[in-house]
């Protein structure tokens, strides 16, 4: 009887672990224009905690979102688009590991493919891509698992 109870407890634990591993996550993807202005607007809430890091990396004081997508990933094999007037970021999730997603990213300028990359996006580590210069600023792609 005690062996059966132990086996049942182990089975329930394993099931719990499995279901925890498959919980859905939200990926925020953004097209961000970084510029230097005399009176910068507050940094968007989605990555406000990265403000100091972003200013240090790019040397700009304002970060404005021009296109974004918040995608709930259930299977880990979804795709989505974050777009602005002239740019589009296509994200194709190819699968999932324990704490991350394997992504194929394509940055389009209208119809033109500017950049393609394969990346592993981790829950504890945002992914940032420096894009082309736009006017006096810079296009930055940001991906964060919320």
């Amino acid at each position: 009887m005690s062996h059966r109870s132990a086996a049942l407890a182990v089975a329930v634990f394993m099931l719990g672990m499995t279901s925890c591993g498959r919980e859905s996550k939200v990926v925020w993807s953004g097209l961000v224009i970084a510029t230097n202005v005399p009176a910068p607007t507050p940094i968007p809430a989605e990555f406000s905690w990265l403000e100091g890091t972003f200013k240090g990396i790019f040397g700009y004081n304002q970060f404005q979102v021009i296109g974004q997508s918040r995608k709930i990933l259930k299977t880990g094999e979804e795709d989505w688009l974050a777009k602005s007037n002239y740019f589009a970021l296509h994200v194709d999730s190819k699968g999932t590991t324990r704490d991350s997603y394997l992504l194929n990213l394509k940055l389009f300028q209208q119809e033109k493919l500017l950049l393609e990359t394969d990346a592993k996006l981790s829950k504890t580590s945002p992914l940032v891509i420096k894009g082309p210069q736009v006017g006096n600023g810079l296009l930055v792609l940001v991906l964060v698992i919320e």
Partner: protein
Amino acid sequence: MKTFEEKFTAWIDGQLTGKELVEFEASLPDKAAAELEKEQAQKLGAFLKEQLGAHSMTNEEFFHHQLREQIDHEEGIGAGAPARRSGETWWTIGRLLWTGAASLAVFIVCTFFIMRDEKVGGQSPLLSQVLGARVDNPEANISIFETKEHKVTVLWVNGLESLPSEYAAQ
């Protein structure tokens, strides 16, 4: 000189006779109560004799009993499946030790393989990773780094064509 208790025991057992019996019975303070006690003691004695007698064995019976026990034991070993005595558990100290050691070994092996898989390329599994990148401009160059603060993974692309400011529109 017998004590009162010795005489009383002998009286119950019916071993007092003659003058000794008469004197003892005359010395009893309550002969009726003593007679009742004697009767109960004799009944108890008879009952015990009856019960103990049922289990007692003669030498011959005891020998046969031992022989049968020996034969049953040897047949049990020969069959390869000795019956487990009630209350005996499979988890002996030796088996517990072996099971513990085996579990520890499995844990170490699993940990080794998991750590090896997750440390591919010398990068922490907690960090995002850029696995590859392609740009349309052959003169563009790419670098990858991680910031210490917030563990941000950065793909730094230089050499992309600059665009006019109207491309910053939402």
